[in-house]
């Protein structure tokens, strides 16, 4: 501990010198600014070519003008949903990376999307499900089942390597995808209803469904923040964590519960957006250091920015059409994953 920290009157327990404090506040400032900027960008850009001035006027002065209606009824709900989904995916990614000590973990890669897709396909194909509201619960169930399954597969071994878990997710996705394909190919109506669902999008969600899922997301976020301290202990290894007074078992069970709520809820609403949970915690870790509390909060701020910017990119590139945000994040995310494994110490976490 540095003497300057002692003399400043606020004892620091993390052994970081005062010199890094301005830098750290700069990091938080940067994350918040990015979030605010992407929020405004998402309100300003869309299929309807409104000028920035029109958007601003419609935003601050809600009336019956076209600009105001577009901003408040179309873009605002979508943007707020993007923030909620981004937070959920980013925090779920940070949690799953911390719990499995696996830098390559991501809800999408580990098969959560496939689980949700499979469950929805069963609902539509075998139980005649129709309409978004019905999809939500099936998707939730499937996503939760897949999360638990991959986690169990990954933790059966004493020494599960990152790539083993990723492959378990890929294998699970392949099996579930194969079964889903079968169900869609034998019935054309199922094929038609399902093919759009699996492509992650925040454009088609209805407010009612968001209200149904929001409590789960909030509960998951609260759990994640509450667990952050014990995750620091778990990062040292199970034995050391236990000797520090952390209940490893409790942390793991609650952690998986939080991941299930966050990733399951986000997937149920959107159909599955990959790679956000993979990329964001890495970037945040470079900026904030290895403290899980900072990583989780940082991911909750940074992931919505990434999601909103990706969504805006999807609105711009094929005007007047749109590309779903899940496709944009996959195209951005794969190079990031490749860069991660090309770094020399890929498994260092």
């Amino acid at each position, binding site marked *: 501990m540095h003497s300057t920290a002692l003399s400043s009157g606020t004892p620091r327990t993390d052994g970081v010198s005062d010199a890094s404090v301005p830098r750290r506040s700069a990091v938080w400032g940067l994350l918040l600014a990015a979030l605010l900027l992407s929020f405004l960008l998402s309100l300003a850009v869309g299929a309807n070519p409104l000028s920035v001035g029109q958007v601003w006027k419609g935003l601050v002065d809600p009336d019956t003008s076209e600009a105001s209606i577009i901003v408040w009824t179309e873009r605002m709900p979508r943007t707020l949903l993007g923030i909620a989904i981004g937070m959920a995916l980013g925090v779920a990614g940070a949690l799953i990376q911390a719990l499995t000590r696996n830098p390559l973990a991501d809800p999408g890669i580990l098969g959560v999307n496939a689980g949700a897709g499979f469950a929805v396909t069963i609902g539509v194909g075998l139980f005649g499900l129709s309409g978004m509201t019905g999809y939500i619960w099936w998707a939730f169930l499937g996503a939760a089942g897949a999360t638990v399954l991959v986690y169990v597969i990954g933790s059966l071994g004493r020494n599960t390597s990152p790539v083993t878990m990723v492959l378990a997710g890929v294998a699970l996705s392949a099996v579930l995808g*194969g079964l889903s394909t079968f169900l869609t190919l034998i019935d054309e109506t199922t094929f038609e209803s399902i093919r759009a669902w699996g492509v992650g999008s925040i454009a088609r969600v209805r407010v009612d469904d968001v209200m149904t899922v929001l409590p789960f997301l909030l509960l998951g976020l609260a759990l994640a923040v509450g667990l952050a301290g014990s995750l620091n202990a778990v990062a040292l290894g199970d034995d050391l964590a236990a000797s520090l007074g952390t209940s490893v078992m409790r942390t793991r069970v609650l952690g998986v519960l939080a991941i299930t709520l966050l990733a399951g809820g986000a997937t149920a609403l959107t159909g599955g957006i990959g790679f956000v949970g993979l990329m964001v915690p890495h970037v945040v870790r470079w900026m904030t250091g290895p403290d899980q509390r900072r990583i989780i909060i940082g991911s909750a701020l940074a992931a919505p920015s990434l999601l909103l910017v990706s969504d805006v990119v999807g609105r711009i590139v094929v005007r007047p059409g749109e590309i779903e945000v899940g496709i944009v994040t996959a195209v951005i995310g794969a190079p990031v994953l490749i860069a991660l*494994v090309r770094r020399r110490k890929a498994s260092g976490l």
Partner: protein
Amino acid sequence: MTVSPGIIDFGYRVLRARTAFSSSRIALRTAVVSAALFAVAVGFAFVALFLGDYPLSLQDVASAMSGRAEEFVSMVVIQWRLPVAVSAVLFGALLGIGGAIFQSLTRNPLGSPDVIGFDAGAYTAVVVVMLAAGSQHAWSIAGAAIGGGLLTALVVYLFAYRRGMQGFRLIVVGIAVSATLGSVNSYLITRADLDDAMQVGFWGAGSLSRVTWSTLVPVIAISLAVIATTILLAPALRSMELGDDMAVSHGTRVGGARAALLVAGVATTALVTAAAGPIGFIALAAPQLARRLTRSPGVSVLAAAAMGSALLSAAHLLSHVLAIVFRPVPVGLITVCIGGIYLIVLLIRESRSRSGAAR
């Protein structure tokens, strides 16, 4: 060919074949197991000849084979079902060979062409050709599958190459590239006309039923060349498993042998994908299952081919049985589901063993 302990004791009984130009040896157990597996494959494929919408008796099939049956029965057996049965045996062997080559070259039980993104690339190319270019022609689809698969494999290798090739990096890069291609596929499929999209879906499920003699004959011709190349290079492959330095000191030209083996390995998968669509997990599972049965120290190309044949013929027969009791299921979906479960079991086992070999 002789069975003898010979001058050198290898620790297992071997078969030797000696000609004026070459000599080779093969473990007796490997030879017996491979022969048995090929017999099983042919048996399954033969049984599948009887099953279908038009049930046939043993006598029908036998008379059709000898050319004495009435015209319709003869057409059903010779023109429709026989090419499919032959393709089950041949394609299985090709996939097994491809898997054995890649697993040996990457020295990783998970380094098979389907895991490292070949199938995804072939699928994307076919989606583009069928949906964007609107072509349903068999040859253009076959060309697209081969081109897309080769290009993707090349990209994956380039991205994964950094001061040498690591199995771990290769697999993760393959997964990343597959994920991107998968989302591109979804994008194209959601924008396409429903009927076209269904067509693509059927192609992507992987089915032998579209194989006819006119597509099978060229595949057989190229396969023979590929198989011959692999047989010639099998000793080099075995010595390269020990590491490049060791292989060089054994007198193997590592660079040339590796390039030729890569081409052969990619060609096996490309041929199958072009003719039948992506058939996953046979290339992954066959060499490893064969290795366990033959108790050989490394991956054996012959045994992997035999195991691949047996697996694909079994899946083919299963798809016929399912068609009778339930609905027709494309054979590719059967291999994906069973193979995926096999991979999960393999992973659990591997991570239970102390070291975790997939690093």
